[in-house]
């Protein structure tokens, strides 16, 4: 947004006091994540979108093709939802960008910039859901482009992808058919001075999911309050879903405090590992990797 341009880059570490990160600390924490969880990798993004305050080859972190085997309601039904609760904050309220509830707009919120994004987000989501219907219609017309007589049609050495339904499909494979995947990106948000998580979902046929469809994979409590549609800072293209960062620093500060109360000191290296652990409350069905053996 426009506000970002005028916010100076954070120079001094304020991590312990406020839970925010400098770009340098973001890179340190990113290197640590990549080292321990190599499914995460640095990306340079598009050259036209290079930011001077980040190293050229370390603009954002990404992990691709992360499975999402079940929808959120299935998880909820089984009582398996694991939400990290911070002491004295039982609703994990860090994600609640609308403390007064999603119905009430524009008042009593600490993040007016986010507010605008939120309201467009809602409409974009509805639009995307519409497009999905369009897409099916179009696809129906266009799938006439079939080719027959190719050797492919009866090649004994080819096994078709499991996502393609075949008459002989076993019970186990029927479960596989439901597997959606996500690409996750972590960028540095210059305005909020925290990491920011982006989500790009794909259905079983690897077509992009609309936001409404992605809501099925987000915690019902958090989804509409927390996910906004905005432009990715390093990759051009349509707006993408992201977990709004306006409460991230606050939650990190609480975690740092909790750890300190336990007589230990949280190192900035671990920032992203902890960050990924706490955003799991929002996306419990997306099975991305982070080092689980970190306790606080």
């Amino acid at each position, binding site marked *: 947004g426009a506000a970002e341009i005028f916010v100076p880059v954070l120079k001094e570490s304020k991590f312990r006091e406020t839970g925010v990160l400098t770009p340098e600390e973001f890179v340190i924490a990113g290197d640590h994540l990549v080292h321990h969880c190599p499914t995460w990798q640095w990306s340079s993004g598009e050259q036209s979108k290079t930011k001077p305050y980040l190293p050229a080859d370390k603009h954002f972190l990404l992990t691709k093709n992360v*499975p999402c085997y079940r929808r959120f309601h299935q998880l909820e039904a089984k009582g398996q939802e694991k939400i990290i609760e911070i002491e004295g904050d039982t609703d994990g309220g860090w994600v609640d960008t609308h403390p007064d509830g999603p119905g009430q707009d524009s008042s009593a919120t600490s993040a007016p910039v986010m507010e605008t994004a939120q309201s467009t987000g809602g409409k974009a989501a509805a*639009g995307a859901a519409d497009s999905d219907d369009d897409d099916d219609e179009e696809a129906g017309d266009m799938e006439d482009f079939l080719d027959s007589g190719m050797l492919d049609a009866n090649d004994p050495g080819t*096994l078709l992808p499991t996502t*393609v339904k075949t008459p002989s499909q076993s019970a186990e494979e029927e479960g596989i058919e439901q597997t959606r995947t996500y690409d996750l990106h972590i960028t540095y948000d210059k305005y909020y001075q925290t990491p920011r998580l982006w989500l790009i979902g794909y259905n079983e046929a690897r077509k992009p999911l609309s936001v409404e469809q992605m809501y099925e994979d987000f915690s019902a409590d958090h989804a509409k309050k927390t996910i906004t549609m905005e432009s990715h800072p390093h990759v051009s293209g349509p707006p993408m879903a992201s977990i709004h960062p306006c409460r991230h620093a606050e939650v990190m500060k609480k975690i740092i405090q909790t750890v300190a109360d336990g007589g230990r000191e949280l190192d900035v290296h671990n920032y992203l590992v902890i960050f990924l652990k706490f955003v799991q409350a929002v996306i419990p069905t997306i099975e991305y990797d982070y080092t689980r053996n970190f306790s606080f």
Partner: protein
Amino acid sequence: MESTHTAPPEVRGPRVLQFELFSSCIDSGFWSALTRKKLDVYGLDETAKSIHGYYSIGSAAFLPCFMNVDHASFEATPSTDSHTYPLHGKLQNFNTIEKFRDSDKQLITDGEANELWNLIMSGEALVNPSLLSRFTLLSFVDLKKYIYSYWFLFPALVYPDALVHETEPRPIQEAFTGEEISHITNFVAKLPKEQNAFLIAHDADGAMEILLIRDLPLIVKDNRKVTLCVCDPSVRADNPGWTVRNVLAMFAYHVRSSPEYRRVQLVCFRQRFRDGLRDVSHSLVLDLRIVFTPNQTMGQTLIPKAVGWERTEKGKLGSRHVNLSAQMDPKKLAEQAV
């Protein structure tokens, strides 16, 4: 040998090895980048352009055999990370939907078969086996409607005539010791990304030596026992992924006149990271028999056929379409923003 006519019904006949075809996964950043290329660079130029894709050998359980293209696919050199491998791609973007529809798919397939075969016969692919990991992407971009039509070919040679399972596939731990597996794993970690296949030579005393695939002719000349290892994008317990197919074709070509290499042990090397730990236990070992037609061992150079066209969502041989108007059309975006 198998005599299927006397076999009791519960005994299965020779089982042909099947390779899991790639499933394409296209980032919306790819379509944005293609749109810009079409407008700013390609114009009406329909000739094939070199692009890149990649695949991972670390996919999570139950996922299909993915290949990815994204915003970086148009850069001059492929960008891969610690667990992804390059796919060398050709993009042919057509100016009209009719040209896209009517393009001669068989001609394209035969052209790819020819290139693959030349890479194998010239020995070029022995030096750089990743050259056999390829794709062709046919596309048409409807710039007014933001509808993208596309069809991927992942060309694979139908050579040798067949590969037959000699035994049931088994996990790597049943064929190699823990020490040997970590030796293999460390070797893979240090390999440059164009080396997506390598060899293990076994000596009579049980010692093993890991070698680059370029050493195959020498190993065959010395008549050493060999295991072929390929970095495998599939996660299935029974099948290797698509890129393994051309490597086996190359292997078969180089051993075609040595009958003692008709039986080959194949390692499908896979690794996954979870909780910060590397896991290779879902890697497979397959014992295969290579079946040639008489012509294939006579030294005749008939170019094999190729297969590998991606199917539609309904499993038919046909193109796919994606409609990104809701996300990309400035008019629709403006309406939503009101």
